């Protein structure tokens, strides 16, 4: 029997093939057949260059592996996590297809830093796009190894062999063959995927492309699914931490004597960390209520209204993201022009599960079970915070109760780890809703100014775009504009110190919601100036076939009736690109002229996302984006006074509810021969603009600031 495991040795810094390295291999992977994929292979497999901004984020050793165990079961190991987006199902589907096994015999092990290869985190709609192709290639490679083994054992030429239903069979007599279990038994074969492998043609897929119910559904409907807060360890204590009243506040005095009145409560203090611990969560809460603290808070005039002037003032010089032609020539060619400034406030991620973690030291190693989108960065952060080597830290993500970008920040897990070390016990930190609204990494407030004009023929003459603090994702326009410039200040959405009064971070399709709102609102303004229907105006200025395709698909399914806005009918359209996916949304709204309240009646969304791995999952993600998007479009906006966050729960920070529910229709524009693109974020980017444009069409009120609260709609109505 040929042994292939030497191919893996240099990759994992192992010794030459010896019994020792074989044991190490078995320890690392278990027995069977293992295929490893690295970042370089992944990039080689990409068709065409990856998007620039993603290339910047891709690490050098983005890895994945796949094992066919001695029992014949297939396991995909990925550093990605499942937080509701359904990848535990779609990745398993991919493996099942490529290996010709039923979906039931595929397992996914996700995010466990002891078992899975390194990964930068689950965000950016990258799981399927970037992880799908290499995982598929790994599966194809594993199939080739199985065929090699079977050729040896059956003494048949490999050309006569094929994978069928978990077996390698003789194609001239399919009853003659060996199961994967028989083939993998006693093996320790490792392959590193360093070359392109013949992938199955898409038409041959039996599982991919067909709707499949999510694999995690049953544990979730029965309450058995374990989230970080559901884990229990022997002797575990629950912690509640002392928090400042405002960001930037410093502790002047603290008196913890009162905590002694709560039976079982103890106080732990290490520098800035002051915590009450108790065998019950509410006991810890009671103890914390007895801590007396006084704080010095810095004074600040900033609030949700004054922030925009501040942002423009502190912004760095803009960087040019894209430009072409000559703006002066464009201005000269324009018969009409509009210049507007668009504003967008801070948003909370507001996952229903607050940031939660359990940490425990067991056998000199720290294990953290955390609600996190980034287990590996968390491992590094925890190791650094506690002065441990990284291999002394294990992060295990249980089910994550919603992330949306917010759980790429792991403060709660570091708090739990520090407390576990200080107490010598397992410690759970589960934030309250107020803590969640305080320490969230909010979607940044942002400002966009656009100056653009149209020619008498209804063509966009020029486009001058400047975005502050939403970054360039979605800023680059895709219309046929001869003279244009797109600038971003700064180029990314991250602001330096002194920019925002609290932490900001990635929020589902970072920056793109703001940019698409501004761009598509302005396009509608130009359409109105040109006296053209908004769909007609877009098509007249678009040659990109994909974008035309999704626009026409949405308009057709919507039964769009062309008219110059405002037509009084309340229909709006918007389109955009995110994570490689093209998306268009038609919206129908009703506006109460007295209260200014907007009600969304109908949303029709079309999306071209290349090959769709799990159509049912893709549609669910689209619906989720559209529903969630109504929140940022109509109601959500964090209120604050300096560093004090005024929204502390869902009574004042309103997220979409059942009673908001419009009729939702989705259209996936079929493109099975294009590589899969992101699906978890794109549909959310168009919601703000489609609704704002529909409001304008309904009542002639152009609202330039999101969310479109009743007060803002009323104010815009007053100026019409």
């Amino acid at each position, binding site marked *: 029997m040929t042994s292939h495991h030497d191919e893996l040795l240099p990759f994992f810094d192992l010794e030459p093939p010896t019994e020792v390295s074989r044991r190490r291999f078995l320890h690392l992977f278990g027995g069977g057949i293992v295929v490893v994929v690295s970042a370089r292979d992944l990039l080689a497999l990409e068709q065409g260059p990856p998007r620039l901004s993603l290339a910047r984020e891709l690490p050098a050793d983005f890895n994945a592996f796949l094992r066919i165990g001695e029992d014949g079961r297939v396991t995909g190991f990925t550093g990605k996590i499942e937080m*509701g987006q359904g990848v535990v199902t779609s990745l398993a589907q991919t493996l099942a297809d490529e290996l010709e096994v039923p979906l039931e015999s595929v397992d996914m092990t996700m995010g466990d830093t002891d078992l899975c290869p390194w990964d930068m985190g689950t965000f950016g709609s990258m799981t399927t796009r970037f992880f799908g192709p290499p995982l598929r290639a790994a599966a194809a490679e594993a199939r080739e190894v199985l065929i090699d083994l079977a050729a040896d054992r059956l003494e048949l030429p490999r050309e006569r062999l094929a994978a069928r239903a978990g077996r390698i069979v003789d194609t001239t007599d399919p009853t003659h063959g060996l199961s994967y279990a028989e083939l993998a038994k006693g093996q320790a074969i490792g392959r590193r995927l360093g070359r392109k492998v013949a992938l199955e043609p898409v038409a041959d897929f039996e599982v991919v492309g067909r709707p499949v119910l999510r694999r995690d559904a049953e544990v979730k409907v029965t*309450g058995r699914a374990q989230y970080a807060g559901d884990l229990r360890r022997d002797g575990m204590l629950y912690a509640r931490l002392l928090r400042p009243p405002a960001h930037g506040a410093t502790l002047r005095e603290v008196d913890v004597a009162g905590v002694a009145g709560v039976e079982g409560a103890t106080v732990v203090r290490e520098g800035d960390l002051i915590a009450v611990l108790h065998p019950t969560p509410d006991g810890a809460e009671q103890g914390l209520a007895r801590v007396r603290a006084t704080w010095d808070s810095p004074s600040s005039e900033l609030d949700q209204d004054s922030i925009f002037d501040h942002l423009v003032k502190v912004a760095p010089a803009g960087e040019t993201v894209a430009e072409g032609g000559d703006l002066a020539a464009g201005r000269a060619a324009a018969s009409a022009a509009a210049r507007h400034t668009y504003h967008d406030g801070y948003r909370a991620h507001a996952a229903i599960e607050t940031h939660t973690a359990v940490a425990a030291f067991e056998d000199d190693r720290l294990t953290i079970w955390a609600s996190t989108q980034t287990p590996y960065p968390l491992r590094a952060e925890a190791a650094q915070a506690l002065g441990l080597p990284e291999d002394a830290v294990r992060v295990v993500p249980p089910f994550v109760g919603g992330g949306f970008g917010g759980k790429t920040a792991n403060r709660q897990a570091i708090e739990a780890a520090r407390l576990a070390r200080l107490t010598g016990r397992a410690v759970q930190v589960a934030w309250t809703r107020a803590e969640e609204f305080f320490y969230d990494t909010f979607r940044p407030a942002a400002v966009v100014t656009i100056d653009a004009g149209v020619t008498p023929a209804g063509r966009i003459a020029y486009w001058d775009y400047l975005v502050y603090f939403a970054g360039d994702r979605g800023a680059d326009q895709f219309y046929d504009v001869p003279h244009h410039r797109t600038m971003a200040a700064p180029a990314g959405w991250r602001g330096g110190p002194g920019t925002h009064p609290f932490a900001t971070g990635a929020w589902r399709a970072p920056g793109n919601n703001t940019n698409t709102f501004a761009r598509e609102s302005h396009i509608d303004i130009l359409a109105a100036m040109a006296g053209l229907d908004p769909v007609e105006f877009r098509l007249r200025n678009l040659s990109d076939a994909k974008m035309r395709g999704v626009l026409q698909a949405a308009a057709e399914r919507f039964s769009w009736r062309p008219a110059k806005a405002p037509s009084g009918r309340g229909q709006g359209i918007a389109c955009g690109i995110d994570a490689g996916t093209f998306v268009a949304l038609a919206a129908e709204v009703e506006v109460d002229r007295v209260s200014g309240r907007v009600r969304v009646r109908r949303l029709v969304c079309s999306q071209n996302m290349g090959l769709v791995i799990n159509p049912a999952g893709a549609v669910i993600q689209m619906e989720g984006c559209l529903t969630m998007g109504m929140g940022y479009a109509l109601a959500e906006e964090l209120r604050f006074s300096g560093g004090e966050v005024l929204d502390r729960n869902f009574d004042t920070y309103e997220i979409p509810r059942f009673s908001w529910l419009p009729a939702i229709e989705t259209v996936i524009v079929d493109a099975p021969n294009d590589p899969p693109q992101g699906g978890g974020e794109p549909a959310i980017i168009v919601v703000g603009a489609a609704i704002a444009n529909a409001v304008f069409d309904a009542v002639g009120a152009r609202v330039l600031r999101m969310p479109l609260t009743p007060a803002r709609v009323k104010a815009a109505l007053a100026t019409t």
Partner: protein
Amino acid sequence: MRKTIRFVLNGRDTAISTDDRRALLWVLRTELGLTGSKFGCGEGLCGACTVLVNRKAVRSCRLPVAEVEGARVVTIEGLVENGVLHPLQTAFMEHDALQCGFCTPGMIISAYSLLLENPRPTREQIIIHMDANLCRCGAHARIVQAIQAAAERMAEGPRP
């Protein structure tokens, strides 16, 4: 005050000796080991902690455990009977009425209380009843469909 509270939890006689002002949610999740009911907001605003007390949906994060003395309490763990899922649970699965799943137990229990008092609710009645249960993933449309489907199945007769 420390007291022994006796109630029927998911069909079983249960007694717990604890401070009777504590929220039912924490007693369920900590001492009683039933973690299906979730903490989401702590103020009864999101519905993730919803349980059934004497056939009514109640926010367990706001309910002192003293108030369930002698009551029948049903949590998400109690909906499975003899290993058979409740029609609401299968409908949520079949309609993909969940994503991250964190609000799901509260959604199902709230829907269960609706179907107990109104076995054939209209879509409008479902929306009104469920309006105070929050879902951030945006599964609302499918949750409404799942509840309608479960109501239809339950109307066809008792489960096998």
